[in-house]
């Protein structure tokens, strides 16, 4: 199974540190922070960012 983690830039250090601790090379898609508290228009921008990141993973 392939897991792709979608996280905000604020949580990127946590994901990387966790991955290092577990000796895992993570598939990570980083979007701007935050995701919570955004209205639909703001969230649409994050969805675009996340989708672009997932597309890159698909093509990798």
């Amino acid at each position, binding site marked *: *199974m392939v897991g792709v983690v*979608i996280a905000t830039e604020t949580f990127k250090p946590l994901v990387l540190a966790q991955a290092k601790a577990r000796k895992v090379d993570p598939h990570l898609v980083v979007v701007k922070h935050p995701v919570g508290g955004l209205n639909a228009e703001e969230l649409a921008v994050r969805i675009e960012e996340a989708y672009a990141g997932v597309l890159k993973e698909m093509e990798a």
Partner: protein
Amino acid sequence: MRIVNPGFGITPAGAEQATEGKVDWLNDPIVLFGNSKPNARELLEGVKAKLGLVRRTDNIDFIAKTSASQGAPLDMINDAAKKYRIALLALGD
């Protein structure tokens, strides 16, 4: 001068990385794994809608751990691992 390393710890046995295997991004089933944080589901569902431009989406499903503050139950993870080949996971806020 010799001191005891306060960061010393032993990596548990059996903590090796699992292998991923190859996946078919256009056809393999995908699980959208929500973390129960606000907008996580909306974000993942939004990505699913956009994935419809490049792949089938009838085998993309959303699930979420029941608590934002606790890890997903092992059964939920194992069931997802059996049913899906790809997971898109929301992490953080």
